[in-house]
């Protein structure tokens, strides 16, 4: 059921409505609002990607797909927990060295997520590997181009993006563009 684009898009919209509702009724719950916006946005993007890819945009042998989910879901869950914990702790810890460790907590599960993705690509079949290669190339090229443009604009003093924001968004941006590229590339082989 959660593979249907319509379901994902509907859920995404619903979560976003709750986020908007929360801004009205509980303006203080900033963390919950941010999370709901994130989850809603993620569901909308996921639904959009599936819709573009004609319902299913990546197919690996079932064994590989199951292992991927088994590795990806716990790592992503750990990331969410550690992210919340890290943000909470950062407000209470003053020592610089300790702050560095706390700030880096969410990176460990992301490394596990990347490991799951790489193992998936390595063990999937040849057609899917080709689709992944094209999608990764496209997303790398586009994000590089975007960041290079941003860098030149910033150096020229035209824009002023905080460096932390710019750095954090590299990976999510790559993932989103990768997803859309994968949906588009896989259409060619259908």
């Amino acid at each position, binding site marked *: 059921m959660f593979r249907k684009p319509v379901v994902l898009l509907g859920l995404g919209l619903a979560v976003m409505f709750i986020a908007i509702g929360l801004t009205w009724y509980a303006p203080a719950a900033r963390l919950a609002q941010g999370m709901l916006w994130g989850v809603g946005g993620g569901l909308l993007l996921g639904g959009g990607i599936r819709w573009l890819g004609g319902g299913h945009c990546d*197919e690996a*042998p079932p064994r590989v797909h199951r292992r991927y989910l088994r590795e990806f879901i716990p790592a992503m869950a750990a990331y969410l927990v550690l992210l919340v914990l890290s943000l909470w702790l950062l407000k209470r810890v003053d020592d610089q060295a300790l702050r560095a460790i706390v700030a880096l907590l969410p990176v460990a599960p992301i490394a596990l997520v990347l490991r799951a993705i790489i193992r998936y690509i390595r063990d999937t*079949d*040849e*057609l*899917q590997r080709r689709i992944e290669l094209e999608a990764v190339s496209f997303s790398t090229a586009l994000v590089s181009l975007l960041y290079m443009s941003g860098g030149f604009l910033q150096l020229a003093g035209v824009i002023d993006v905080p460096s932390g924001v710019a750095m954090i968004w590299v990976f999510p941006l790559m993932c989103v563009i990768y997803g859309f590229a994968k949906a588009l590339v896989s259409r060619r*082989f*259908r």
Partner: protein
Amino acid sequence: MDSRIRELRERFGWSQGELAERLQVSRQTVNAIETGKYDPSLPLAFRLARLFGEPIEAIFLPDGIQGEE
């Protein structure tokens, strides 16, 4: 590239999913090979040939020799 995969698969009475399982690839790949949208690697072509008990050149038909793209 044109191929006789669909014809052979149907002769063996397999669905795309069943053939995919025997070849250790996804159904998407079987479908893309059958529709001529993807040319399999040499090892996969050999696995197909062995499965159907026919030589590779009897299964895959290079463009321009027979049929249309």
